[in-house]
């Protein structure tokens, strides 16, 4: 069995920042990602990030990704790409389908003293008549096509969902030369940042709030050729007679994400159901789960955004390194306190408040589950 001090599952913003912190403190860190390139979603994010300038806001995600890869290399983080963690087992064993050259497909078990799971999230789907028609895809898939593979998913796109993913991907599809025929949102108001909506409104994209996709009509070749949308009432029920047909060859669905938590369920980590985030693992202020030595960070803990993922990754990395003796308790605490303060600032305002409350709820639930006092 291979031995590593820390294994990080996932090389996205949370996993990479955890790996960088822990390796920077002196730990031997192995970071594993199933993609052929590290960086998670960062390399799809060609837009400039919000956040504090002290933390690279105003910089494009793709450039933040490049900086982090350089930093991880500098700090000596070992990276396994094209490798899937297929299981976490008692005794801190990490089962990996190792996909690197020469050992493609080999199964290896790594014993890790500490494990950090930063497995991200996966896209939700919306089922409507014709949802399996070729040309219907996740907004994240459409974004990967244009920004990573430089292939247009189609000529004319209907976007379903007005969260930041739906708004940003609509904009980026237009930058790539696609037309966005409509943005459709079931709720009565736009879900994401108004500035993102303003950008696509300015480009002439019609926004249909209180509407959803009723069905997709294929052409003779079986590909999407028309999209029928319908108005919704306050109870999200279809309003008869409000159907309208839109010519389009692609439908992108940006209907939110759910945390990827299967590995933590295998380890029997304690979970809770939270109305904001769904079923998520409990963790404490070290980002440690109910299983000692197993930490989490980023979207796995509840879907937020890259800035919060980066900060949570740092906390997990510092905690794991401190638990191994690479940082004094005082130093680790001082650094974690600073990061928690920055996280609190990122979770303010109308968009952040409910995520701050959700995070506090999770931390309290962790304390309660351990029989301790609820966090004040």
């Amino acid at each position, binding site marked *: 069995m291979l031995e590593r001090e820390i294994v990080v599952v996932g090389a996205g913003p949370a996993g990479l920042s955890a790996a960088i912190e822990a390796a920077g403190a002196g730990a031997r860190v192995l970071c594993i990602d199933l993609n052929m390139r590290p960086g998670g979603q960062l390399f799809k994010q060609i837009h400039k990030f919000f956040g504090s300038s002290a933390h690279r*806001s105003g910089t494009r995600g793709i450039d933040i990704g490049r900086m982090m890869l350089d930093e991880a290399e500098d700090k000596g983080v070992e990276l396994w790409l094209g490798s899937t963690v297929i299981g976490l087992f008692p005794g801190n064993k990490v089962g990996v389908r190792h996909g690197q050259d020469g050992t493609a497909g080999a199964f290896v078990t790594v014993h890790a003293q500490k494990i950090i799971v930063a497995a991200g999230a996966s896209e939700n789907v919306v089922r409507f008549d014709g949802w399996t028609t070729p040309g219907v895809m996740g907004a994240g898939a459409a974004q990967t096509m244009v920004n990573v593979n430089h292939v247009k998913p189609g000529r004319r796109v209907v976007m379903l969902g007005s969260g930041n993913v739906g708004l940003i991907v609509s904009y980026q599809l237009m930058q790539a030369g696609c037309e966005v025929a409509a943005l459709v949102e079931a709720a009565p108001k736009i879900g994401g940042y108004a500035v993102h909506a303003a950008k696509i409104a300015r480009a002439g994209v019609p926004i249909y709030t209180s509407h959803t996709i009723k069905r997709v009509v294929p052409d003779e070749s079986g590909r999407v050729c028309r999209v029928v949308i319908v108005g919704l009432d306050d109870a999200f029920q279809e309003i008869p007679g409000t159907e309208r047909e839109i010519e389009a060859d692609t439908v992108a669905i940006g209907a939110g994400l759910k945390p990827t938590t299967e590995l933590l369920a295998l380890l029997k980590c304690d979970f809770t159901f939270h109305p904001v985030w769904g079923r998520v693992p409990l963790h404490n202020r070290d980002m440690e789960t109910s299983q000692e030595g197993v930490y989490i960070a980023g979207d796995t803990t509840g879907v937020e955004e890259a800035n919060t993922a980066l900060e949570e990754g740092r906390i997990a990395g510092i905690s794991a390194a401190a638990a191994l003796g690479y940082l004094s308790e005082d130093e680790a605490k001082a650094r974690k306190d600073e990061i928690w303060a920055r996280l609190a600032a990122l979770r303010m305002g109308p968009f952040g408040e409910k995520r701050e409350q959700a995070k506090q709820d999770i931390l309290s639930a962790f304390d309660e589950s351990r029989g301790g006092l609820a966090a004040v």
Partner: protein
Amino acid sequence: MPLLKCGYLTYEELRALRAVPSDARYAKGPVAVIECVQEIPCNPCETSCPSRAICVGDPIVNLPCLAEEQCTGCGMCVAKCPGMAIFVVDKAYSDTTATVGFPYEYFPLPEEGAAVTAVDRAGQPVCGGTVVRVMNPKAFDHTPVVTVEIPKAFADEVRGIERGTC
């Protein structure tokens, strides 16, 4: 709020929510118009301003405030704002025309001197215009700032141009 329904505000709605430059300041030449109305954690406008004319402060969800007398209308914040929500308006450009500068991240990039159709916040055509400046220095990090000359009457409406095709 119409913003949340259709994705944009009219100038009147913006004025009701946020301070816009005074008439006196507009009369002096180019000035930043900040169309940022939601408290989101973001402050590159503040840190990018070479004249220190924009203040966000702590916490960073504060809405940005412009010290209009300090603003030189240089356009740095226009390129830096991740929300592309800042414009530079020059109502003193000539007796009859004004200019509006906006971020433009599409291909093809218009050329100086080109005749274009100027659009409002809803993307609807408002009037004809002429591109007078295309700024795309390294510091703007691939967010060119395009400035169009338009009839003065439309200075508060025009916020972009119809896109060309590649």
